Protein backbone atom coordinates (compact mmCIF):
# COMPACT_ATOMS: atom_id res chain seq x y z
CA UNK A 1 0.00 0.00 0.00
CA UNK A 2 1.38 3.40 -0.99
CA UNK A 3 2.09 5.98 1.70
CA UNK A 4 3.16 9.60 1.40
CA UNK A 5 6.17 11.31 2.95
CA UNK A 6 6.43 15.00 3.68
CA UNK A 7 8.11 15.45 0.28
CA UNK A 8 4.95 13.97 -1.30
CA UNK A 9 6.76 11.09 -2.94
CA UNK A 10 4.52 8.03 -3.12
CA UNK A 11 6.48 5.19 -1.54
CA UNK A 12 5.77 1.75 -3.00
CA UNK A 13 7.79 -0.17 -0.43
CA UNK A 14 9.83 0.60 2.67
CA UNK A 15 12.95 -1.36 3.58
CA UNK A 16 13.81 -0.88 7.24
CA UNK A 17 17.50 -1.81 7.38
CA UNK A 18 18.22 0.02 10.63
CA UNK A 19 20.64 -1.97 12.75
CA UNK A 20 22.15 -3.65 9.67
CA UNK A 21 25.79 -2.91 8.87
CA UNK A 22 27.55 -2.22 5.55
CA UNK A 23 26.80 -3.57 3.00
CA UNK A 24 23.58 -4.97 4.50
CA UNK A 25 21.29 -2.00 3.73
CA UNK A 26 22.44 -1.92 0.09
CA UNK A 27 21.93 -5.67 -0.23
CA UNK A 28 18.41 -5.30 1.18
CA UNK A 29 17.69 -2.46 -1.28
CA UNK A 30 18.94 -4.51 -4.24
CA UNK A 31 16.72 -7.42 -3.21
CA UNK A 32 13.71 -5.11 -2.96
CA UNK A 33 14.46 -3.54 -6.36
CA UNK A 34 14.71 -6.96 -7.99
CA UNK A 35 11.32 -7.88 -6.59
CA UNK A 36 9.69 -4.61 -7.74
CA UNK A 37 8.28 -3.31 -11.02
CA UNK A 38 9.91 -0.48 -12.99
CA UNK A 39 8.60 2.78 -11.56
CA UNK A 40 8.44 1.45 -8.00
CA UNK A 41 9.64 3.86 -5.33
CA UNK A 42 11.55 2.26 -2.47
CA UNK A 43 12.48 3.97 0.78
CA UNK A 44 15.44 2.55 2.71
CA UNK A 45 16.02 3.34 6.38
CA UNK A 46 19.67 2.84 7.33
CA UNK A 47 21.64 3.58 10.47
CA UNK A 48 24.89 2.52 8.78
CA UNK A 49 27.13 5.53 8.20
CA UNK A 50 28.23 4.28 4.77
CA UNK A 51 24.78 4.09 3.21
CA UNK A 52 24.37 7.79 2.45
CA UNK A 53 27.39 7.65 0.13
CA UNK A 54 27.25 4.02 -1.02
CA UNK A 55 23.58 3.79 -1.94
CA UNK A 56 23.51 6.94 -4.14
CA UNK A 57 26.65 5.75 -5.97
CA UNK A 58 25.12 2.33 -6.56
CA UNK A 59 21.82 3.87 -7.67
CA UNK A 60 23.64 5.95 -10.31
CA UNK A 61 25.72 3.04 -11.55
CA UNK A 62 22.74 0.70 -11.69
CA UNK A 63 20.70 3.22 -13.69
CA UNK A 64 18.02 4.00 -11.12
CA UNK A 65 17.11 7.42 -9.70
CA UNK A 66 17.74 8.91 -6.27
CA UNK A 67 14.62 10.84 -5.25
CA UNK A 68 15.67 11.97 -1.79
CA UNK A 69 18.17 11.50 1.00
CA UNK A 70 17.17 12.84 4.40
CA UNK A 71 18.80 12.56 7.81
CA UNK A 72 16.19 11.37 10.30
CA UNK A 73 16.50 10.76 14.03
CA UNK A 74 19.49 8.38 14.20
CA UNK A 75 19.22 7.09 10.65
CA UNK A 76 19.07 8.15 7.00
CA UNK A 77 16.04 7.79 4.74
CA UNK A 78 17.04 7.20 1.13
CA UNK A 79 14.34 7.07 -1.52
CA UNK A 80 15.02 5.39 -4.85
CA UNK A 81 12.95 4.95 -8.01
CA UNK A 82 13.47 1.76 -9.99
CA UNK A 83 14.14 2.88 -13.57
CA UNK A 84 14.85 -0.32 -15.46
Amino acid sequence: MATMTDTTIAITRTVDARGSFCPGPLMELIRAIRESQVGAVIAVYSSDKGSKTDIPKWVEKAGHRLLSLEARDGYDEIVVEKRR
Partner: protein
Amino acid sequence: MDEPLNLVLFSGTDDKLQAAAVLAAGAAALGKPVNIFLQYWALDAFRADKIGQDHGLAPEAGVAGRAAVDALARAGQAPWAETLRQAKDLGAVDIQACSVSMDLLKLDSIDLDPLVDGVEGVTAFYLNAGGGQVVFI
Protein backbone atom coordinates in the same frame (compact mmCIF):
# COMPACT_ATOMS: atom_id res chain seq x y z
CA MET B 1 33.48 -4.36 -13.82
CA ASP B 2 33.42 -7.67 -15.68
CA GLU B 3 36.71 -8.98 -14.30
CA PRO B 4 36.11 -10.95 -11.10
CA LEU B 5 37.31 -10.09 -7.62
CA ASN B 6 39.43 -12.99 -6.39
CA LEU B 7 39.86 -13.45 -2.66
CA VAL B 8 42.32 -15.96 -1.27
CA LEU B 9 41.35 -16.56 2.35
CA PHE B 10 44.13 -17.97 4.51
CA SER B 11 43.37 -16.66 7.99
CA GLY B 12 40.62 -18.29 9.99
CA THR B 13 39.91 -15.62 12.58
CA ASP B 14 36.47 -14.03 12.65
CA ASP B 15 37.73 -10.46 12.06
CA LYS B 16 39.54 -11.32 8.83
CA LEU B 17 36.70 -13.52 7.62
CA GLN B 18 34.25 -10.70 8.39
CA ALA B 19 36.34 -8.19 6.43
CA ALA B 20 36.54 -10.61 3.51
CA ALA B 21 32.79 -11.25 3.60
CA VAL B 22 32.09 -7.51 3.43
CA LEU B 23 34.43 -7.13 0.43
CA ALA B 24 32.73 -10.05 -1.29
CA ALA B 25 29.24 -8.72 -0.59
CA GLY B 26 30.11 -5.24 -1.86
CA ALA B 27 31.49 -6.64 -5.11
CA ALA B 28 28.47 -8.91 -5.52
CA ALA B 29 26.18 -5.90 -5.00
CA LEU B 30 27.92 -4.19 -7.92
CA GLY B 31 27.41 -7.21 -10.14
CA LYS B 32 31.08 -8.16 -10.04
CA PRO B 33 31.73 -11.91 -9.96
CA VAL B 34 33.63 -13.06 -6.87
CA ASN B 35 35.87 -16.12 -6.59
CA ILE B 36 36.87 -17.17 -3.09
CA PHE B 37 39.66 -19.71 -2.58
CA LEU B 38 39.91 -21.20 0.92
CA GLN B 39 43.29 -22.25 2.28
CA TYR B 40 44.61 -23.39 5.64
CA TRP B 41 42.81 -21.93 8.67
CA ALA B 42 40.17 -20.15 6.61
CA LEU B 43 39.17 -23.51 5.18
CA ASP B 44 39.07 -24.95 8.70
CA ALA B 45 36.60 -22.23 9.68
CA PHE B 46 34.24 -23.37 6.87
CA ARG B 47 33.89 -26.86 8.34
CA ALA B 48 30.21 -27.60 8.84
CA ASP B 49 30.78 -28.40 12.52
CA LYS B 50 32.82 -25.23 13.14
CA ILE B 51 31.38 -22.45 10.97
CA GLY B 52 29.05 -21.13 13.65
CA GLN B 53 31.67 -21.21 16.40
CA ASP B 54 33.92 -18.46 17.75
CA HIS B 55 37.11 -18.45 15.67
CA GLY B 56 38.93 -15.80 17.69
CA LEU B 57 40.51 -12.60 16.37
CA ALA B 58 43.88 -11.64 14.91
CA PRO B 59 46.47 -11.02 17.67
CA GLU B 60 46.55 -7.25 17.06
CA ALA B 61 42.91 -7.00 18.15
CA GLY B 62 43.88 -7.25 21.81
CA VAL B 63 41.37 -6.87 24.61
CA ALA B 64 39.95 -3.58 23.34
CA GLY B 65 39.52 -5.01 19.84
CA ARG B 66 37.72 -8.04 21.22
CA ALA B 67 35.32 -5.74 23.10
CA ALA B 68 34.71 -3.62 19.99
CA VAL B 69 33.97 -6.66 17.81
CA ASP B 70 31.63 -8.07 20.44
CA ALA B 71 29.82 -4.72 20.69
CA LEU B 72 29.25 -4.62 16.92
CA ALA B 73 27.90 -8.16 17.00
CA ARG B 74 25.53 -7.23 19.83
CA ALA B 75 24.44 -4.19 17.81
CA GLY B 76 23.35 -6.58 15.08
CA GLN B 77 26.24 -7.07 12.66
CA ALA B 78 25.54 -10.26 10.74
CA PRO B 79 28.10 -13.06 11.26
CA TRP B 80 30.48 -13.44 8.30
CA ALA B 81 28.88 -16.70 7.19
CA GLU B 82 25.50 -14.95 6.98
CA THR B 83 27.01 -12.04 5.02
CA LEU B 84 28.47 -14.54 2.55
CA ARG B 85 25.11 -16.30 2.26
CA GLN B 86 23.49 -12.96 1.38
CA ALA B 87 26.28 -12.18 -1.09
CA LYS B 88 25.70 -15.50 -2.84
CA ASP B 89 22.01 -14.70 -2.97
CA LEU B 90 22.78 -11.35 -4.59
CA GLY B 91 25.38 -12.23 -7.19
CA ALA B 92 27.89 -14.68 -8.60
CA VAL B 93 29.98 -15.66 -5.58
CA ASP B 94 31.83 -18.96 -6.00
CA ILE B 95 33.59 -20.46 -2.98
CA GLN B 96 36.16 -23.19 -3.57
CA ALA B 97 38.32 -25.14 -1.15
CA CYS B 98 42.02 -25.54 -1.96
CA SER B 99 42.67 -29.24 -2.57
CA VAL B 100 46.03 -29.19 -0.76
CA SER B 101 44.44 -27.63 2.34
CA MET B 102 41.72 -30.31 2.20
CA ASP B 103 44.50 -32.91 2.48
CA LEU B 104 46.30 -30.94 5.18
CA LEU B 105 43.18 -30.81 7.35
CA LYS B 106 42.11 -34.33 6.33
CA LEU B 107 38.73 -33.10 5.10
CA ASP B 108 36.21 -34.46 2.61
CA SER B 109 33.68 -32.29 0.77
CA ILE B 110 30.97 -33.62 3.07
CA ASP B 111 32.78 -32.05 6.07
CA LEU B 112 32.32 -28.53 4.65
CA ASP B 113 29.46 -26.10 5.08
CA PRO B 114 27.16 -25.86 2.01
CA LEU B 115 28.50 -22.33 1.42
CA VAL B 116 31.50 -24.06 -0.17
CA ASP B 117 30.73 -24.88 -3.80
CA GLY B 118 33.55 -27.33 -4.43
CA VAL B 119 37.20 -28.29 -4.22
CA GLU B 120 39.77 -27.17 -6.79
CA GLY B 121 43.48 -26.75 -7.34
CA VAL B 122 45.39 -23.51 -7.59
CA THR B 123 45.51 -23.66 -11.39
CA ALA B 124 41.73 -23.73 -11.65
CA PHE B 125 41.64 -20.79 -9.26
CA TYR B 126 43.99 -18.74 -11.47
CA LEU B 127 42.10 -19.67 -14.61
CA ASN B 128 38.83 -18.51 -13.05
CA ALA B 129 40.54 -15.36 -11.76
CA GLY B 130 41.22 -14.20 -15.32
CA GLY B 131 42.60 -10.67 -15.31
CA GLY B 132 40.93 -9.74 -12.03
CA GLN B 133 42.70 -8.68 -8.86
CA VAL B 134 43.84 -11.35 -6.43
CA VAL B 135 43.59 -10.33 -2.77
CA PHE B 136 45.18 -12.45 -0.04
CA ILE B 137 43.62 -12.21 3.42
